């Protein structure tokens, strides 16, 4: 498994059963975990950065997946929060379909953003594979998610 994907994701940063069915509510839910566990030092600054990125083009990449992300000085430790919505989140995705899986990327503004963007790119590539999408949707817990990503990242 890509070192960065593995170190950026963890059981404590996973929500199975995202409550909000609205884009920003869902993103805030995931960001709240980052705040709680000290990965970011300001919810508002971090969310602002996510909003700025979202203005360019929606991170709802289709097929029920979203990869919101932000590079921000509010990020203390780079991390990825995984969120699974059972009811679907209205996200304004490029295919106009609801989102069932979110990967919120928090990237520090330290000048080495490229490394983390590379990890985001690697995840995006994985998410092109039908079997990866299928297995992630079927994941019941973080172990399942990690297993799927691990099994598929060796190309």
């Amino acid at each position, binding site marked *: 498994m890509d070192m960065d994907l593995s170190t950026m994701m963890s059981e404590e940063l996973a929500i199975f059963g995202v409550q909000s069915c609205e884009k920003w509510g869902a993103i805030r839910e995931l960001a709240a975990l980052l705040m709680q566990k000290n990965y970011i030092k300001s919810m508002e600054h971090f969310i602002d950065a996510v909003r700025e990125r979202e203005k360019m083009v929606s991170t709802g990449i289709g097929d029920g997946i979203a*990869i919101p992300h932000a590079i921000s000085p509010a990020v203390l430790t780079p991390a990825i929060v995984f969120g699974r919505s059972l009811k679907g989140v209205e996200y304004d995705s490029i295919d106009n379909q609801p989102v069932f899986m979110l990967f919120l990327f928090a990237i520090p503004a330290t000048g080495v953003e490229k490394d983390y963007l590379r990890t985001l790119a690697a995840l995006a590539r994985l998410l092109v594979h039908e079997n990866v999408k299928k297995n992630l949707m079927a994941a019941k817990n973080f172990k399942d998610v990690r297993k799927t990503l691990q099994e598929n990242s060796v190309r």
Partner: protein
Amino acid sequence: MKIVVVSACSTGVASTYMASEALELAAKARGHEVLAETQGTIGIENEVSFDDAQSSDIIILARDIKILGLERFEGKKILEVQVGEAIRKAAEVIQRAEKMVLEK
């Protein structure tokens, strides 16, 4: 067939790589050899050489912005598609490329 794919999307983070991945998968599924270069926010990766470009059967440009290094593809058949199309309809794009190669 030997196919060269270059993808470049203005937002550069996910789409560029997804287009590249989708086209690579579709091309390999059809038994083709494929070299895929990405021009995204993290810079140019897996840059295709002039020689590799010239010895290919066709160049596929999946792009929403200008591609750098077009001079490498001088004289080659080029199929241009939108990044979104490459991601969602990769198999069709490869089939179109195949047709183009077979045409005079």
